[in-house]
């Protein structure tokens, strides 16, 4: 899971992650307000990208290690709106899961927001910025962003747990390797499937509503035209 379970993080660490998460959320809400004021047509796009976070993060899928985990779905919204607005959507999903599903919990919510809503999307966003203006295929970019945002979420979860529970021998790093073995390896096949599926979704967004993608300057105009076969 993305989640650290309620009670499994000492309160000191809960506070630390909450302190990191809160300013990001505040900034995300501010950005969200600005985007929606500027362009009401961004709202449906927010609905689609947020909708996929809801759908994908509810699917618990089996993986190669014999345990189940779920994709995060954060990549699309990261590409269209950036990491901070994505944090806000993730916070809503995670709150839902904390309150109704006993997945995660209120004390560990900060830590879970940092992994799923902040570090994952930030890693994806870095890839997106690096590849946006290159000749690399637009859908390949979307694939990589989504897959990496997913993977980095689990790297972060492992790291958060390792910090709280350093091993007696080898300390934080050895715990980190241990948790990575559980979370990250399970996640690799899921991240690949998630990347491919979301790239396909992005193709349909571009097909149906290229104007909004252009307006938000998600990708350069030539790339979108080329993808639509207009050149």
């Amino acid at each position, binding site marked *: 899971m993305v989640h650290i379970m309620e009670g499994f993080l000492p309160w000191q660490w809960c506070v630390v992650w909450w302190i990191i998460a809160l300013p990001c959320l505040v900034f995300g809400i501010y950005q969200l307000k600005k985007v929606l004021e500027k362009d009401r047509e961004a709202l449906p796009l927010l609905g689609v990208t947020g909708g996929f976070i809801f759908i994908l993060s*509810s699917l618990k899928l089996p993986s190669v290690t*014999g345990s189940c985990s779920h994709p995060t779905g954060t990549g699309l919204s990261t590409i269209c709106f950036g990491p901070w607005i994505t944090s806000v959507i993730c916070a809503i999903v995670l709150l839902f899961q904390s309150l109704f599903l006993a997945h995660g919990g209120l004390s560990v919510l900060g830590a879970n927001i940092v992994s799923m809503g902040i570090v994952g999307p930030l890693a994806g966003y870095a890839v997106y910025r690096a590849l946006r203006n290159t000749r690399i295929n637009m859908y390949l970019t979307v694939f990589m962003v989504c897959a990496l945002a997913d993977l980095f979420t689990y790297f972060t979860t492992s790291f958060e747990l390792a910090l709280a529970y350093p091993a007696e021998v080898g300390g934080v790093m050895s715990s980190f390797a241990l948790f990575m073995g559980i979370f990250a390896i399970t996640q690799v096949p899921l991240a690949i499937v998630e990347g491919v599926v979301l790239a396909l979704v992005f193709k349909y967004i571009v097909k149906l509503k290229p104007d909004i993608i252009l307006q938000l300057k998600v990708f350069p105009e030539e790339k979108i035209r080329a993808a639509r076969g207009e050149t």
Partner: protein
Amino acid sequence: MSFKYGLEIIALLAIIGFCGLFLYTSSIMSDAEFAGSDTVGSSQIAELTGKSEEEFQPLIGQWIPPSGEIESALFALQAAIGGIFVGWVFGYWKGQKKTA
């Protein structure tokens, strides 16, 4: 993508491959429980700290779905909410395109 449906085919192959991988792992790993990786993670924490899992009590009390069935219903609800958003917007865009 030179071929019109290239991405669709890749996505389909990825999903089929994923299912195949699942069938393969579930057939060779007879002891696999396919429990959530958070459950596996929690038992790992218990092992690291030398405490039993029961000692980890929620810091903030939380409501726990009384059964797996209720939990999966709520998960389905979450997916449905997402699905409604996605379907509504795609339909909205499609309608906009027609009237334009």
